[in-house]
């Protein structure tokens, strides 16, 4: 192996891309879980409100 090959900057872009996929995916998943739980709560709230109306 020549000295210039040893001194070359290594190609580590695949690891960098994988890293940024994680940095983007995890917060997106967290936000998606917030939206999902919010939707379920809304549904529960509506169901209970209608039950309350029926009881009246």
């Amino acid at each position, binding site marked *: 192996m020549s000295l210039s090959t040893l001194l070359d900057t290594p190609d*580590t*872009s695949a690891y*960098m891309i994988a890293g*940024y996929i994680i*940095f983007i995916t*995890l917060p997106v998943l967290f*936000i998606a879980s917030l939206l999902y739980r*919010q939707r379920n709560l*809304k549904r529960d709230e509506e169901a*209970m409100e209608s039950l309350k109306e029926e009881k009246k």
Partner: protein
Amino acid sequence: MPTSTPRPLQILSLVTAVMALIALGLVFFYAQTEVTMGEVQRIFYFHVPSAWVGFLAFFVTLVAGIAFLRTGDYKWDRVGFSSVEIGITFSAMTLLSGVLWGRPAWNTWWTWEPRVTTYTIMLLLYFAYLMLRQSLEDPNRRARYAAVYGIVAFVSVPITYFAIQLARSIHPVLFGPANPNAEGDSSLTPEMLQTFFFCLFFFTVLYATLLWHRLRLADHADRVEQLKAKLMSA
């Protein structure tokens, strides 16, 4: 009952989204490529800020735990719980991105060196916080136990932070005296430093935005619980 997103939160969310684009722009187009490690060094700009947000989130849980025990106000329980969820997300990001950085830098996917080991233990401790909450039905007991657990679990945060100074480690040191055993350490140019500090600020704003959204969800869940209790008792 107000359920629509308040105007300040809408603005904060928009600002956070714009900051995300600026941060990515700085990371990929402004900061130079590091010569020794190559492109993988760019992980550093989001890796360290996500670790910071993890620590910050767990610190907020500590403060919320103390506040709950002092006041008995369930608002603090919701703050602590919400913050742990965000802290776990960001700590997992830190750990996974560290694994990806470690492969080319340390020539291994995983090593039981002090920082990585203590970080993993810290993350597992906060997963256990969520499990503890899940296992308790009574809201008062759940809030009290979670508050105490959140205070005790925080001990893992300074241990994790100082692990590389207390024990022989190959993890690079960013702040404080340089680690002579560090592998994958690098000096930063002014552009790299500017990018790093902007990312640090962006992640802090992102944490505040997510916490606000998560707290609104917790408040909503609380209202639904109260409605359910009212219906059951009627």
